[in-house]
């Protein structure tokens, strides 16, 4: 009888709920969307107002004679008219402009073809369109910042070393915390707070001297040692939480069936903890990979990738779209790992509270 209105009400409620969720999701990623979009814009587009919401896929050109040579114009979608961008007789200049400013690589012979068309066709103006190379900002970023590729590799190496150091040192303590009662257990627990109470920059600056003494200054291992200061304490927490999530009775069962403590750890505890430890490793990766401040302070000739992006940000008066491309390359591994980490949130944070 009154079944339909009820179902309708449910449907409406559900629709509103999902509309809300979508709105929320959109507003969270809106800034990221613009960063992504920016990384695909041509330099000319990225300095127009309003910024295009989406990058164009091709550009409409017109070519006509001028006193000095040729007038190259670009169709402006927003103003709905052609706008002259270049007045020159030099074809090379034209080609470079088309590539660097508009993002449409166009070789000189091709331009010559167009000019021949203009000269011989008896037309005042000729129109042509060129497809945009969407990835141009990305390739350019790696070309003009010559450090980019080695820096990327270095960043990977640093992140790897940080994971190695903090996970090996941190997970031992995490295991002790989860399984043993010992003096200083609470101090260990609060250490995650202590180490954060002192400004990281101040530590990083003094580390410069310590690292120099060790011969590690401006080397990947040096930064990894610095990053581990913050991440070990966190790893202790996370791994303690992971180990707490593994019932002790499982270990006891293994011992009852004849395993030594060490075998128990290798055959029972470790495999069970592995996903959680992997998540902890990824979490450490996020920190080491994205860190910039200590990297700026503690590198000289061997910057990390985040420093390279940072420098392009500072120098990027004319090239925000390149910085955006670099920033996104930097963001991609973090995003991938975040995607995996989300499944282990409870294991990582569920066991420990102050």
């Amino acid at each position, binding site marked *: 009888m009154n079944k339909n209105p009820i179902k309708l009400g449910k449907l409406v409620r559900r629709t509103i709920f999902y509309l809300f969720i979508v709105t929320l999701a959109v507003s969270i990623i809106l800034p990221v969307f613009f960063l992504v979009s920016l990384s695909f814009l041509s330099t000319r587009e990225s300095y*127009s107002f309003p910024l295009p919401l989406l990058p164009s896929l091709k550009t409409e050109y017109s070519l006509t004679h001028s006193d000095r040579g040729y007038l190259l114009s670009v169709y402006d979608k927003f103003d709905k008219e052609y706008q002259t961008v270049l007045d020159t007789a030099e074809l090379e200049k034209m080609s470079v402009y088309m590539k660097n400013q508009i993002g449409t690589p166009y070789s000189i012979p091709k331009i010559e073809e167009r000019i021949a068309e203009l000269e011989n066709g008896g037309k005042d103006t000729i129109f042509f369109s060129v497809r945009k190379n969407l990835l141009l900002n990305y390739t350019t970023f790696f070309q003009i910042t010559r450090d980019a590729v080695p820096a990327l590799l270095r960043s990977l190496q640093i992140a790897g070393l940080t994971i190695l150091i903090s996970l090996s040192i941190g997970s031992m303590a995490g295991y002790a915390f989860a399984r043993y009662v010992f003096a200083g257990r609470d101090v260990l627990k609060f250490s995650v707070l202590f180490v954060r109470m002192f*400004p990281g920059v101040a530590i990083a600056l003094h580390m410069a001297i310590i690292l120099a003494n060790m011969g590690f200054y401006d080397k990947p291992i040096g930064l990894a040692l610095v990053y581990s200061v913050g991440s070990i304490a966190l790893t202790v927490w996370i791994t303690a939480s992971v180990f707490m999530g593994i019932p002790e009775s499982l270990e006891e069962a293994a011992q009852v069936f004849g395993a030594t403590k060490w075998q128990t750890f290798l055959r029972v505890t470790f495999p069970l903890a592995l996903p959680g430890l992997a998540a902890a490793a990824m979490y450490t990766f996020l920190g080491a990979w994205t860190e910039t401040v200590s990297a700026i302070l503690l590198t000289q000739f061997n910057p990390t990738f985040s420093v390279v992006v940072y420098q392009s940000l500072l120098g990027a008066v004319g090239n925000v779209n390149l910085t955006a491309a670099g920033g996104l390359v930097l963001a991609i591994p973090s995003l991938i790992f975040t995607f995996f980490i*989300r499944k282990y949130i409870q294991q990582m944070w569920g066991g420990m509270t102050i």
Partner: protein
Amino acid sequence: MTASTPAKRFRDLGSKAVPYLLIAPVVIYYFFFWFRPVLVTLIKSFQTAAGAFTLQNYHMVLTDPDFLVALRNTAIIVLFSVTLEFLGALFLALLINRKFTGSTFFLFVAMIPMALPGVAVAAMWLTGLTAHGWINSLLYYLGILAEGAKIYWLAGSEWKLLGLIILIDAWQVIPSMMIILLAGLQNIPEETIEAGYVFGGNFITVLRKITMPLLGPTIQTAVILRLISAIQIWLIIVLLVGFSRMPVLVERIVYYYKEVPNLDISLQMASGYAIVVSFIVSMVALLYLKVSGAFGGKKEAAQ
């Protein structure tokens, strides 16, 4: 019972030592790479450039005209951003914990800001907040901004800037707080909450009387971690508006170390600021833990 042989006693000692052996690397590591720098800073903060003992550095820091401004700015940012971030994070965590279809994907979306590197975030907001940036573009597309009109986000009053910084910081920090709260929520057995509904609670009463009290320790953890790092905010500010425009405490440390490293007093000021900041951070943390009842007054309920 046999009398304990030396071998057995040795073994006992060995097994007692296990936890200490396990935590030894952490202790050693922190001694070398944390405690030493801290100690050096502490000593430097009591020394003149020539190395003699002095209290002058602290006097300089505390009478520095920028100190009070930095303190005030930091306090405002901490107060509002931690509150805003906590409420936002709790809201998101409760929402995601409802486990609707698509909630795990939504969780990923909600975690994106925390995955983005600081520089990428700075690039994002810088390109957004300029007069020709995407924020104005968006407002224009939405019809909110008239043709030719621009909002100069980064210009104008300090308060506007503070507000912006709080919002931007919240955007990036909410996810890391949210995941801690979400983990805590997932630890509460579903039936404990459901019992609240069966026995007459509505959403608000169940949240107030059951969910929040059970989440208490988790909330403490999330808030204290956030509080400690919120007091040390500086990077996003410097990237957005540069040094000295909107002084905050840690920005002053970096300012003296990096921007004007060659003044006579640079090192003293920087060390002094660093110690003052740590002092403030630890006092605030202690106060928070005390007020929120993390010490002593633990309810017997804790299982």
